[in-house]
C-alpha cells in the first residue's frame, strides 16, 4: 500500500495534464457531466418527494399501531371496516386506547377562485389528539362547531388570500358537497401527488358532509399502546385476535405500505427510475465522446510510450485518471445547480424535495461509475496504438 502511494506520487499526472491543456474539451465534458448529474438528481428528487409527500399525513399520526381494511390500497383508496374492530382491539394486552378516523376525497370550491378542486377530508375525534400537528390540536374545540374545518396551509394552489385571512383570525367560508363550511385555523402537512391538500374536521362534521357514509364504517383505526409495549408484538397479537376483515400495521409499516403502493402499483416509480437511467446513459455517451476523442488525438504519443516500454495498464491508467477527474470536477456544478433547482421546485410545488446526504453520495458514486464505464469503452481504442507503426 505504501509503495503504491510512493509510486503514484512519482507518476506524472498525465490524465490531468491532458485534460487541463485542452480547456474547451474539458469544459464540454464537465458541462455534460453536470447536465447528467442534474437530470439524475431531479429524477431521484421527484421520486423521493413522491414517496415522502404521500406519507406526510401518516407520519403526523399520533398512534403506535394502525388498523385498516385489507381492501385498502393507499390513503386515497383506503376502504372501510367496521368500527367494532377498534373496540375488540382493546381486548389485546398492551393496547391502551383506540380511536377512529374517517377519510374521504371530495370536490370543494376554492374560497378565492370558487373553482372546484379535489381535497382530502379527515374526520377525527375532537376530544383526542390524533395528530402531532399543533395547528390541529389548538383548534379541536373549534371543529366541534357545525361545518367547521381546519385548513392545510401548504395546500397546492391559489390560497394566499385565504391563508392571510385565516392568519388574521378571520373565518372564510366555502362549499363542499353543497354545504357551506367555515375554515378555522391552519395546520401544515402539504400537497402530495394524490391530493392538493387536506382538511381536518370532527367525525360529526365529516358524517354531515357525507350523509351516505355509515357511522360504523371507519377508514383508519388508531391504536395507542401502553408504555413499554412492543408495537411489533402487539401488531402480531392484534392480527391474530381480530377477524380477517381488518389488518394491523405498525406506524412504520403503514408508512411503507403507502410508499409501496406508489412504487409498485403505479407507473410513477418506474418512470422516475427510467428517467434516472436516461440521465446516466446521456452521461456515459457524453463522457465517452470526450474521452475517445482525447485517446484518438494522443494515439501517436501513446504508441511512443508503448515503444519506450510502458505497459498497457499505464495507458489505461491515464484514461481512468481522466474519467475520475471528470467525475469529481463535473459533480461540483451538477450538485450546486441541483441544489438551486431543488429549492425552486420546493417553493413552486410544495413538494418535500430535499437533497439528502445519502442521495448526494449515491449520485457521486453513480457519476464515478458513469465516467469509469465511459473510460472503459474509450480504452478499447488504446489497443490500436501499435508501437511498430510509429517508425
Amino acid at each position, binding site marked *: 500500500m505504501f509503495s503504491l502511494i510512493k509510486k503514484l506520487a*512519482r507518476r*506524472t499526472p498525465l490524465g490531468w495534464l491532458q485534460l487541463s491543456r485542452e480547456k474547451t474539451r474539458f469544459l464540454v465534458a464537465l458541462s455534460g457531466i453536470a447536465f447528467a448529474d442534474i437530470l439524475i438528481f431531479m429524477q431521484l428528487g421527484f421520486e423521493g418527494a413522491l414517496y415522502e409527500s404521500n406519507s406526510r399525513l401518516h407520519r403526523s399520526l399520533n398512534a403506535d399501531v394502525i388498523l385498516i381494511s385489507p381492501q385498502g390500497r393507499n390513503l386515497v383508496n383506503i376502504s372501510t371496516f367496521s368500527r367494532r374492530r377498534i373496540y375488540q382491539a382493546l381486548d389485546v394486552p398492551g393496547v391502551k386506547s383506540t380511536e377512529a378516523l374517517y377519510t374521504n376525497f371530495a370536490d370543494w370550491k376554492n374560497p378565492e377562485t370558487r373553482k372546484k378542486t379535489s381535497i382530502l377530508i379527515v374526520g377525527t375525534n375532537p376530544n383526542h389528539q390524533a395528530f402531532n400537528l399543533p395547528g390541529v390540536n389548538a383548534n379541536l374545540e373549534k371543529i366541534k362547531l357545525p361545518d367547521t374545518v381546519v385548513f392545510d396551509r401548504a395546500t397546492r394552489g391559489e390560497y394566499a388570500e385565504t391563508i392571510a385571512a385565516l392568519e388574521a383570525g378571520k373565518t372564510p367560508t366555502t362549499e363542499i358537497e353543497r354545504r357551506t363550511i367555515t375554515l378555522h385555523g391552519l395546520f401544515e402537512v402539504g400537497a402530495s401527488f394524490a391530493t392538493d391538500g387536506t382538511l381536518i374536521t370532527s367525525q360529526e362534521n365529516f358524517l354531515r358532509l357525507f350523509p351516505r357514509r355509515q357511522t360504523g364504517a371507519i377508514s383508519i383505526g388508531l391504536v395507542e399502546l401502553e408504555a413499554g409495549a412492543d408495537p411489533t408484538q402487539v401488531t402480531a397479537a392484534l392480527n391474530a385476535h381480530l377477524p380477517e376483515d381488518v389488518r394491523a400495521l405498525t406506524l412504520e409499516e403503514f408508512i411503507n405500505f403507502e410508499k409501496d403502493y406508489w412504487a409498485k402499483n403505479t407507473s410513477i416509480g418506474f418512470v422516475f427510475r427510467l428517467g434516472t437511467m436516461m440521465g446516466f446513459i446521456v452521461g456515459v455517451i457524453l463522457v465517452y465522446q470526450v474521452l475517445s476523442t482525447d485517446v484518438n488525438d494522443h494515439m*501517436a*504519443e501513446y504508441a511512443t510510450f508503448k*515503444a519506450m*516500454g510502458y505497459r498497457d495498464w499505464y495507458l489505461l491508467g491515464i484514461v481512468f485518471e481522466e474519467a475520475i477527474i471528470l467525475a469529481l470536477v463535473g459533480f461540483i456544478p451538477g450538485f450546486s445547480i441541483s441544489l438551486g433547482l431543488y429549492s425552486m421546485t420546493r417553493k413552486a410545488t410544495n413538494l418535500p424535495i430535499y437533497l439528502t446526504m445519502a442521495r448526494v453520495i449515491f449520485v457521486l458514486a453513480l457519476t464515478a461509475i458513469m465516467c469509469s464505464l465511459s473510460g472503459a469503452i474509450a480504452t478499447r481504442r488504446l489497443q490500436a496504438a501499435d*508501437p511498430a507503426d510509429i*517508425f
Partner: protein
Amino acid sequence: MNEESVISITGLDHYFGKGQLRKQVLFEINLNIAAGEIILMTGPSGSGKTTLLTLVGALRAVQCGSLQVLGQELCGASKGKQVQARRNNGYIFQAHNLHRSLTAMQNVQMGLEVHGSFSSREMRRRSVEMLEQVGLGDRVHYYPEDLSGGQKQRVAIARALVSHPRIVLADEPTAALDSKSGRDVVNLMQRLAQEQGCTILLVTHDNRILDIADRIVHMEDGKLASAAAVP
C-alpha cells in the same frame, strides 16, 4: 557469438501478412554489433530497414531465426519480456512524437519514469541536466508547440538518452530537419553516445551524415548487401 556483441542477429527471416498474402520481407539477416559501435543502415524505401529496426527494438515479435539483444533472445519472447526489453533502448523517431500536453522537462521525465527507480526530485534533476546537455537549458518549461523542429528533435534525443540506455535506435532522425539542424542533431547523438558509451543503430537516407558511422550496412530487397567499415 562475439563476447562483445550487444546485438547479435543470425538467420533472421521475417514475413508480413497471412496465408496467400504472406510475403517475406527479411531474408537470412546476419549482423553483429559490438558495444559502442555506431552503425548506419541505408537502403531504398521498402528494403526492410525499419522492419529490422522494430525487431531489434522488440516492437515486433521475432518469427524465426535468432535475435539477441544484450544477451537476451527475442525470438519467441513473451509480451512481458518484450516490454522489458524495450526499456533498455532509447528511441528517436523521424517525427519527434513528443506529448503535446507535457513540457520539455516532463517529456524527458517520461523516459525515466518507465524505469520506476528514481524519486521525483532525482527525475527532475536528471531531466533538466539532460536538456542542458542538448542545449535547451533555457527551454525547460516550454511546450512542444512553442519549440522549433530542431529543438523538438533535441528534446526527443534528451528523452531517449536521459536513462543512459545501452542501445539507441533511430529512424531517420534528420529527415524532417534542415541540413544545419540535422547536422547538429547527429553530432549531438554522436557526442552523447560516446560519453555514455552506448551503441547506436541508425536508419537513414541522409548522405550528409554518413561520416559519423563506424560501419555502414546497406539493405536491399530484405537482404543485407554489405557491411563495410568506414575508413
